């Protein structure tokens, strides 16, 4: 949804995703792209507030309330950028006017290194290298059983 910065209300994608919440992170498996992602606590909180009605400003406020410390809207945009690239949002993420995009380095520069620990991180989960060295199928290969895959995850006949 293209809108002014203050009224951008991101929406989390629901369809085709399997979500598993762990103690410190949230795991998401994309059934359509056969990819697995890991969201740290901050990224997960942002994603969970992406209901299509809550603005980025309000998401930042929610993070502040949760963390007990100040959270700039840039942190939310950084999370949205990563979530968007991972196809976990519906629609495009349009960065704030005047910005070419939010980079992690830029956000760290602005919020300070001390706050960098709580920055959102969305990473792809890949099969461990040691497993790939064994006689197993790499990600994206056709499979009939999870034991065939290096990732130990065969879904709809494709190794994650």
């Amino acid at each position, binding site marked *: 949804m293209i809108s002014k910065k203050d009224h951008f209300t991101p929406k989390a994608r629901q369809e085709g995703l*399997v*979500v*598993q919440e*762990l103690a410190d*992170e949230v*795991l998401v*498996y994309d059934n359509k792209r056969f990819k*697995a992602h*890991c969201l740290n606590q901050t990224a997960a909180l942002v994603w969970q507030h992406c209901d299509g009605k809550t603005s980025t400003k309000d998401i930042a406020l929610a993070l502040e309330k949760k963390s007990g410390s100040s959270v700039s809207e840039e942190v939310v945009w950084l999370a949205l950028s990563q979530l968007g690239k991972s196809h976990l949002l519906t629609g495009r993420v349009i960065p704030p006017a005047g910005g070419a995009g939010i980079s992690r380095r830029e956000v760290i520069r602005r919020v300070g290194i001390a706050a960098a620990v709580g920055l959102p991180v969305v990473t792809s*989960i*890949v*099969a*461990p*290298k*040691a*497993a790939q*060295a*064994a*006689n197993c199928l790499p990600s994206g290969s056709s499979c*009939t*059983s*999870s*034991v065939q895959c290096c*990732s*130990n*995850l*065969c*879904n*709809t*006949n494709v190794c*994650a």
Partner: protein
Amino acid sequence: MTESGRTNRHLGETVAGILHGAWRRNPPELELAESELDRVTPLLLASGAASLGWWRVRNSNLKSTQSALELQQAYRLHSLQSALHQSEITDLVSLARDAGAEPVLVKGWAVARLYPEMGLRPYGDVDLCFSKESYAKAEAAFANLDRTRYQVDLHEGFSKLDNLGSEQLLSRSRPISIGGMEVRVLGEEDQLRILCTHALRHSVWRPLWLCDIAVAIETRSPEFDWQRCVGRDAREADWVACAIGLAHRFLGARIEGTPVEQRANALPGWLVRRTLKNWSAPFPELYPPLSYTRPFVTYFRDPTGLVRTLRMRWPDPIEATIRMRGPFNSFPRWPYQVANASRRITMFLGGLLGTGPKTG
């Protein structure tokens, strides 16, 4: 002992060290050198114990090492897999019930649920057992199942798992809640016995199996009936006690005050040594069925690799003892290995001549 024997033993002991108490919500503190972790991480990954390895490492000073991060990735993937399986199981059970067939969920999820987190214990397929009467209905119901989405094995009865009759196992099964639905699993005594005999039948090559035994013991209910668990057959009861003994000796499973404690603390040396040797190379492709890379009859036409395959097919002493229903005493194992090999050759030849089932 040879140099390679010492190396194997050390590797096996290191694997045991990492998995010691790993099935507990708060496992004991880990003290391990980074180089040792690097050496055993491929073994944990190959044998499905990577999640448990991460569970131990995550609160140690090794948690940020490259090997630990690989274990963590495996833990994440296994956690996702368990979430995927959960929705599959409820679909499959519903499908069976709609056809009038009541399944009992065995192996996989039924064992994983005992762990603090389902993702700690990976599994592949969903295994459902049915009574002989309802198996046909289940087969018909699953005939058009989308196999690209569901990986399920249907079993008629329980004969592949246990010697106890299907009726008794069914009558002792109990309902467990999964995703808001009640699903039947084996009684805890039967499950522990089957975990023990299964591990031994497959040479205990996978350390994860002893973790299963350990968690099953430590999460048993106060009403756990040991007599029901070990059964009436003295030989099999001894096997069960020895398997539990291995879980205690290598992984620290708590067995104090149990009827098997004495026997579990008096294991034959060959059993301990062989388990450690197998743990030094817990790769699925080294054990049946994956070690059978091609049907044996093809070696008559093309003997390439025959010597290697004969070496790989030589019966493991633990497996041979179980298959020949031998005792776990301190006598040499080669008579059981020879007997087991002879039996398999006889069956193979019988299959060739059309007089019996083929093997290998």
